[in-house]
């Protein structure tokens, strides 16, 4: 063996070793993320009692001898962005429903997951797979950032499709598909109403991630909402994860504003927190609940920035101040211990609970028309959301899929303490397709 061959083999072995070491099975366990305290959570008996009433089920386990009821579940993970917590929470909800809520009319519920990594082709493939699977009558979507148009088109008339939270205007314009959670359509109006009516701010600085479609859409909506409410504002775009947030904050007038609104995904939260601190911004900061991620807590010296966070669901990080959030956390602790409880997890978990409620009423094999009709007639509450919803209530504004525009704003006090959430219904403020 020559020196060159030996060196090449050595390099290959080293490369393979490095790759295996980095991607090895210890991956996620090696870096355990801190999970907020669960010391005061209610017992599972409370969760069983409350949720059995909610879904109209029989407390107890589903009969495993009976044929399962299958639900298709399309989710996005493995690429960028990735929401693995959605499937984990959905599976936890299924296990909880089968163990404690009697499944669906006594039959065990089973998820048929299909994963979109990052391509439209994968979303289309998932839709075609669901369309051709005779076991499936209902397809539950989790949040997809790609390919939703072809998913709706492929499944239309073939399967009942239930949305979760809209990621784009395509989601709210889909025919006979309803989105229980409002996404940007509630959040931006909610922020505007909170800033105008609770904080009484007259002059607001808005900084958003211009290269992120969701954030840019949010900026557009918040502009419309502030316009309606007569609040003066200045908007400046920055780029996702950019170190250069300070420029944008100063340019938007954050140093003299009555309130600062930051519309972004998680990667921009820490640069924003640093810039806010370094610039000495005094005004209250309102940010999306993406910024409550553990990575933000870690990077911010072990605690979240003392901002007000806006989310579509009740504040699941604060079980002390919200009974439903505590029950959710209790169920997650039992059926998905150590899993992420924030991000998309609450919406995915609640979506499955809602599916159980719907199937208990419609039976295991509903038609698309029956499912659509059920949602139209569903007035609420969402277990982790508002008391009242009304699917299609904004159809005349070109948003037929939307069921609610209510969001929750939670001021964070530091050291793990929260104020009770303020529930704000944005109604039609600032809504734009």
């Amino acid at each position: 063996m020559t020196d060159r061959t030996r060196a090449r083999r050595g390099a290959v072995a080293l490369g393979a070793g490095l790759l295996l070491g980095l991607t090895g099975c210890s991956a996620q366990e090696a870096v355990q993320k801190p999970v907020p305290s669960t010391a005061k959570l209610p017992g599972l008996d409370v969760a069983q009692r409350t949720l059995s009433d909610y879904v109209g089920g029989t407390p107890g386990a589903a009969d495993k001898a009976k044929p399962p009821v299958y639900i298709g579940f399309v989710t996005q993970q493995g690429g960028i962005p990735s929401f693995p917590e959605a499937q984990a929470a959905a599976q936890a909800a299924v296990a909880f429903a089968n163990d404690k809520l009697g499944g669906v009319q006594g039959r065990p519920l089973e998820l048929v997951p299909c994963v979109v990594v990052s391509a439209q082709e994968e979303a289309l493939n998932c839709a075609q797979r669901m369309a051709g699977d005779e076991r499936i009558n209902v397809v539950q979507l989790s949040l997809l950032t790609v390919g939703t148009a072809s998913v709706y088109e492929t499944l239309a008339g073939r399967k009942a499709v239930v949305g979760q939270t809209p990621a784009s205007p395509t989601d709210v314009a889909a025919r006979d598909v309803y989105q229980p959670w409002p996404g940007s359509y509630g959040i931006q109006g909610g922020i505007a109403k909170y800033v105008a009516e609770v904080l009484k701010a007259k002059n607001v600085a808005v900084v958003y991630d211009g290269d992120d479609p969701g954030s840019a859409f949010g900026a557009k909506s918040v502009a419309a909402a502030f316009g309606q409410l007569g609040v003066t504002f200045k908007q400046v775009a920055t780029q996702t994860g950019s170190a250069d947030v300070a420029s944008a904050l100063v340019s938007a007038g954050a140093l003299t504003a009555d309130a600062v609104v930051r519309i972004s995904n998680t990667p921009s939260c820490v640069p924003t927190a640093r810039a806010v601190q370094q610039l000495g911004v005094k005004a209250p900061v309102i940010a999306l609940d993406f910024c409550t991620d553990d990575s933000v807590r870690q990077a911010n010296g072990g605690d979240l920035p003392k901002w007000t966070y806006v989310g579509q669901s009740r504040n699941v990080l604060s079980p002390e101040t919200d009974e439903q959030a505590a029950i959710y956390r209790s169920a997650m602790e039992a059926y998905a211990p150590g899993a992420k409880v924030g991000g998309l997890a609450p919406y995915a978990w609640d979506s499955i609970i809602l599916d159980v409620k719907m199937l208990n009423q419609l039976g295991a094999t509903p038609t698309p028309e029956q499912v659509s009709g059920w949602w139209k007639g569903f007035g609420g509450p969402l277990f982790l959301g508002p008391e009242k919803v009304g699917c299609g209530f904004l159809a005349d504004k070109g948003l037929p899929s939307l069921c609610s525009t209510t969001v929750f704003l939670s001021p964070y006090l530091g050291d793990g303490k929260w104020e009770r959430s303020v529930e704000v219904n944005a109604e039609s403020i600032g809504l734009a397709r």
Partner: protein
Amino acid sequence: MTSSLGPEQVLAFVALGLGYGALIAGLATGLVVTYRSSGVINVAAGATAALVAYVYSELRTTGVPFALVIGLVVAAVLGALQYLLVYRPLAKAGPLAKLVASSGVLLTAQAVIVLRWGADPVAAPAILPQETVDLLGVSIPQDRLLLAGLVIVATALLWALYRHTRFGIATRATADSAKGSVLLGLSTGRLEVANWVIASVLGGLFGMLAAPTTQLQPTTFTLLVVPVLTAALLGGFSSFGVTVATAFGLGVVNSLIALLQGQSWFPQVEGTPLPGVTELVPFLVLAVTLYLRGRALPDRLTAVAPPMPRAPRPRRAGPAMAVGAVVAVAALAGLPFDWRQALVNSMLGAVLCLSVVVTTGFVGQISFAQMAVAGAAGYVMATVGGDLGLPFPLPPLAGIAAAVLTSLLFSVPARRVRGLQLAVLTLAGGVAAQRFWFGNPQWGSGLRPANVAPITVFGMEISPSRSFWGTEPPSQGFGLVVLAALLGCVFLVAWLRRSDLGARMLAVRSSEAAAAATGVNVGAVKTLAFAIGGLLAGVAGVLYGYTFTGVSADRFGPLTSIAFFGVAVLGGVGTVGGALVGGLLVAQGLLFHAVTTWFGIPPDYQPLFAGLAVVLTVIGSPDGVAVSVADAARSLRVRRLALGES
């Protein structure tokens, strides 16, 4: 401090932009080092730096001592491994193959990050002090200024290293003439590996230092590929000083655009500042600069045309098309739904690859803009069919016309800018088009996908989701439409290669000066090639819009453009067969579907598989799979003939 426009404010924003500029500069200087030593435009530099920063972050959070030193060692090992495993086997390959290999490394590094640390952001522990200094009435974070200072120091050291040391002079000598260096007794391999280590350590160091300012996410540094390439390109991939100055300039421009957005006169769209300006301005600066500088750039980039894969005349194209058509129809009729969709994806990919065959394979213009050109077709088709409500076939025709016009726009700089410069310019142009056009609510579709109405002929709807021959989606009828379009495009490209125009294109590719000397109108030939390439990309864009019932801006980002160009090169950019092989290789195409299905590769591991497949394929077939297969078949025939004679 207010955000009104005074000299103090402008200076303060200039200072605020230094941090971003320093990050670009740190990565761009590494790019210059690898290009000078190995001729590789390393688009994976950002991803490698991110990987090092992730390792450092994990070491710090788990309390491992000497984390910074270990991080630097990891960076050095990654640099050495990249060279030994990927670029050394490609030493004799052309720059296209090396560029594609680096895109494979990018995908691999990014996939490793997602598998190990997930796609969620990870906290990056700070190395530099986080306090602020008061400058012109605004608090400037110290770490930005220190980072900028460190970049300048590192640049000075690099300059001294390559200017005054034996190692640096040897590296420059090797870059100028590898053969001459060998004759002088220099070990080119050792020099190159040392340079890769330097570049990787440099990138890793600035990655670790800058990560706390951005927080770590898999694409945080990778998405800087366009500004990093811009800085390195304007530095001629040789001058550290110009590269760093350009990088700081880009950082400052970025910061000043933020300042301008806060002004009342800044153009607004639906209450928000006009999107895409941050991407458009650097692209325009780059385009104008390169255009004006014309041929004045260093020889390695322009005067010597990069070697291109062979482009033989197609033989027996007619019978091959007929056989292919029969096989494809049978496959559409008999395959299950997932394989049928994979076939449609492959045919779509092949049409787009054909456009690369014309612009790059035939006329030698490395254009990353084909995805953007396809996007233009999709967006215009959506507008004409949706907003204007015009009937079929006007929307697709308008879309294809728009694609031709867009491609012709890219042909303007191609008259004076060529080779790898054009590659970077078209990549930046594609990103500018994505953000300024497609993502603009006023003249693109904004943030929502633009809906595309299905094909309707005599009241019959032909779309992927409609039932055809009574089967489940995807519809075979739509598959036949895609097949017909592919056959038409194949015929066009095969005819082009056999025509006089094709011969003139190859003459231009071989040597523009020689072609001009023999009376070939080089500019006109390039323009025609871009027009035909645009037409083919337009057909692909239209079909893509129909397949997914809409087009969305995120389809045309820089990483997608790089990845797609890589697939086209892997198939083979010189031949029609290469384009068809490229089609098989596209994400969710037939080959991808076959491998992931048969070997049960889980979705989480598919990006890693794709990255490694790109690297291994380009090492095995640097001229493209189609050329390797043809060579193997030819060898077999020769051997048989020899056996028969004996």
